[in-house]
C-alpha cells in the first residue's frame, strides 16, 4: 500500500520552475516590467531620468507597506479598512512629536509604529473577541480614527519647516541608487514574507483563513493569531504614516484617504484570495508596485490621469475573474488526474477502482501534490 504514495515524478528543480511559471507573482511582475518598458520607450526620463528612477522605486514604498499588512489580515479571512485612517493619524503624530518634543528621529519612528500597533490592537480585540466581521468593525474604526485625526489636527497642517532636516533627507536619500524608504519597505516585505512562509505563526494564519472552524478544532489559538495579524497591519500602517511624512515633508488632513481600498486592491491583484487562506505578500507587493506605477505612467502614455482609477478598478475585477477561471481549470485538472490515476495504477478493472480502499491514499496524495 505504501507504494501507492509516491513523490511527484518531476524533479524538484522542474517543479520549482513549473510553479514559478504558473504563479500569479510572475504574471504581475511581467505586466509591471512591460508597463515600465512601454512607458520608458515613450519617454526616456521615466526610467533613466535623474528623478525618474528614484520616483519609480520611492512612490510605491507606502502602498507596499500597507499591502503587506493587509495581506496578513486578508489571509486570515478578515479585512482591515482602517489602515488609511491609521496612516493619517500616525503621520500627524510624527509631525506633532517633531514640533512639540526633541525626541531623536528613531524614537519618533518607533512612536509612530507603536501608535499604529495600538490602533491595530483595538481592531483586533473587537474582531477576535466581539465575533463580528472585520469588515464592519474596521469600517467603524475607520470613521473613528479619521475623526480623531481631524479633530486633533484641526485646521493646522505640518509643514516641511516643522520637521528636522535629517528626517526629511530620509525621504530623498538613497543607498547604492536605491532610496532608503524603499529599502525599509523591502526589508519589511522580506521579513513578513519569510515569516508567513516558514514560521509556525505564519502557517497558522493560512490555516485559520482556509477554515476557521477546522483551525479552532485543531487547537490553534485563532483569536491570538487574528489579533496578531491586526496588530501587524496597524503597525505597518503606522510605519507607512511615518514614511509618508518623510517622503512628502508635509502632513495634510487628506493623508491616507481612500488608500485602504488601494491596499485591498493591491493584495487582490497580487493573487491574495479575499476569502483567506492563500496568497503571498510578494504578490501583494508587486500588485502595489503595479498600481502605483500605472498611476504614474498613464500621463506619460498620453492617457488622461483621470482614467487611472478606472484602470485600477478594471484590473481588480479582471484579477478576480482570472482567479476564478484558473481555479475552475485546476479543479477540472484534479478530477481528470484522479480518474486517470485510479484507473491506471491498479490491476483490477477500472470501474472497480473507486471502491477499492487501497486506491484512496494514492489518489489523495496525488491531489495534495497537485494542490501544492
Amino acid at each position, binding site marked *: 500500500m505504501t507504494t501507492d504514495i509516491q513523490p511527484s515524478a518531476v524533479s524538484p528543480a522542474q517543479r520549482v520552475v513549473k510553479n514559478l511559471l504558473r504563479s500569479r507573482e510572475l504574471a504581475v511582475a511581467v505586466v509591471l516590467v512591460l508597463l515600465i518598458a512601454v512607458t520608458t520607450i515613450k519617454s526616456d526620463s521615466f526610467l533613466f531620468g535623474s528623478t525618474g528612477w528614484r520616483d519609480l522605486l520611492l512612490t510605491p514604498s507606502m502602498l507596499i507597506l500597507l499591502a503587506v499588512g493587509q495581506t496578513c489580515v486578508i489571509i486570515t479571512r478578515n*479585512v482591515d479598512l482602517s489602515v488609511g485612517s491609521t496612516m493619517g493619524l500616525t503621520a500627524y503624530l510624527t509631525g506633532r512629536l517633531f514640533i512639540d518634543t526633541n525626541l531623536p528621529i528613531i524614537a519618533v519612528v518607533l512612536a509612530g509604529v507603536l501608535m499604529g500597533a495600538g490602533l491595530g490592537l483595538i481592531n483586533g480585540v*473587537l474582531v477576535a473577541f*466581539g*465575533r*463580528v*466581521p472585520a*469588515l*464592519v*468593525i474596521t*469600517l*467603524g*474604526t*475607520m*470613521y*473613528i480614527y*479619521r*475623526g*480623531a485625526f*481631524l*479633530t486633533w489636527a484641526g485646521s493646522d497642517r505640518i509643514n516641511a519647516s516643522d520637521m528636522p532636516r535629517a528626517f526629511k533627507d530620509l525621504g530623498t536619500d538613497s543607498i547604492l541608487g536605491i532610496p532608503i524608504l524603499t529599502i525599509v519597505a523591502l526589508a519589511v516585505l522580506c521579513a513578513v514574507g519569510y515569516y508567513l512562509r516558514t514560521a509556525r505563526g505564519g502557517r497558522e494564519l493560512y490555516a485559520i483563513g482556509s477554515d476557521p472552524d477546522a483551525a479552532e478544532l485543531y487547537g490553534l489559538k485563532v483569536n491570538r493569531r487574528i489579533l496578531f495579524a491586526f496588530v501587524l497591519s496597524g503597525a505597518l500602517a503606522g510605519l507607512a504614516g511615518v514614511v509618508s511624512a518623510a517622503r512628502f515633508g508635509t502632513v495634510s488632513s487628506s493623508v491616507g484617504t481612500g488608500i485602504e*481600498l488601494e491596499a*485591498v*486592491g493591491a493584495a*487582490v491583484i497580487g493573487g491574495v484570495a*479575499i*476569502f483567506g487562506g492563500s496568497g503571498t505578500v510578494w504578490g501583494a507587493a508587486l500588485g502595489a508596485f503595479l498600481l502605483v506605477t500605472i498611476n504614474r505612467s498613464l500621463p506619460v502614455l498620453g492617457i*488622461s490621469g*483621470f*482614467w*487611472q*482609477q*478606472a*484602470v*485600477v*478598478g*478594471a*484590473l*481588480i*475585477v479582471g*484579477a*478576480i*475573474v482570472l482567479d*476564478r477561471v484558473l481555479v475552475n481549470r485546476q479543479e477540472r485538472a484534479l478530477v481528470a488526474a484522479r480518474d486517470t490515476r485510479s484507473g491506471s495504477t491498479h490491476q483490477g478493472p477500472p470501474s472497480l477502482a473507486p471502491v477499492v480502499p487501497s486506491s484512496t491514499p494514492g489518489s489523495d496524495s496525488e491531489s495534495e501534490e497537485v494542490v501544492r
Partner: protein
Amino acid sequence: MSTLTETPSAPATARTYAAYSRPFWQRVVFSREFAVIALLIAAIVYSRSQVDYFDGPQTMYYLFRDSASILLLALPMTAIIITGEIDLSVASTVGLTSVAFGMLHNDAGLSAMVAAILAIGIGALCGAFNGFLVAYVGLPSIAVTIGTLALFRGIAAGLLGTESRTDFPDGWTDWAKQRIVEDQPYPMILIPFVILAIAFALLLHFSPFGRGVFEIGLNDEAAHFTGVDVARTKAILFVLAGTVAGFVGIYTTLVTGVARAENSQGLELQVIAAVLLGGVSIFGGKGALHGVIAGVLLIGVIQRAMLLNGQTINIINITIGVLLVLSVMSTSLLALARRVIEASRGARTSGRASGSDKTAPASGR
C-alpha cells in the same frame, strides 16, 4: 453541539425553535428594529428639548433632504445584505450616473427627461455588471464591488475630469428642493422615497421573492433545494441597487446643481453603516426595512443635533463610528453576558451539566 445531544431524548415532533412562542405584541416590541425606533424617538425628543433651533422650521426639512440619498440607497442595500452579499459600489454608481446625466443633457443636448432615463439605465447596467459577476460567475461580492467601486468612479472621473456640468432646467432643480406642502418640512423627494419604500417592503416582507431573499441569507444551499433561484435573486437585487443608485445620481445632481465625478464619494460606507445600525445582520438572513429606515433617520438626527450644537463633522463621524461598532457588537455582548450568567449558575448546581458538555463534541463528530 448541544442540540445534537438533546434531540434524541426530545420527542421527534417537538419544535426546536421558539418562534411564535410569544404573543404578537411582544414579538414586535422586543426586537432589534423596535430598539432602533425607540432610540430614534428618544433622540428626537432629547434634541427638541435640549438643542437650540432643532425644532425650527428648517431643521427637519434639511434632515430629510440630506438623508434622502442614504434612505433611497438603503432600500436595495438592505435586501442585498440580507442575502449575505454586500455592494460597496453604489456611491460610485451615483457618481457615474450623475456625470452621465449631466453630460447627456449638457453635451449631447438631450432633453432632461431622456437624459434621466438613460442615466437610470446606466445605473441598472452597472448593477447588472455586479450582479452577473457575483451571482452567475460566483465571485465574492466584496471583492467584485471593491473593484467596481474604483471602476465606476474611475469612468466618471475619466469622462469629466475635474470639470462639472451645471446647466439644468430650472423646473427640475426647483422640484428637487420643493416641499410637498408649503411650510411643512417634507421635501418632494419623500414622495418617490415613500413609493419605493412601500414597494421594497412588499417585495422583501410580503412576497415569495422576499422569503427567498431571507432564505438565501440563512442558507443558500437549502434555498436552492427549496426551489429558490439563488443566482437570479441575487442578480435582480444588484440590478435594483444600480437602478436606485441611478435615480439617486439624478437627485444628487439636481439638489446640488452640479454633475461632477466626486458626487457622493464615500456614501457607500454611510449607507452600510445605517443599514447595519438598523438591525440587519451582516451575516445575512436577518433584518427588516422599518429598522433600517429608523437607522438612517437616527444617524441624520444625531448629525443635525450635533451640528446645531456646534460640534464639528469629525466628532459626528466618531460618534457614528462608535454607534456602528456598538450596534453590531451588541448581539455578541448580550450573548457573552448570557454565557457568563449561565456559567456561574452551572458552576453552582452540579458537575453533571459540564460532564455532558464535554462529551458533546465527541458525539457530534
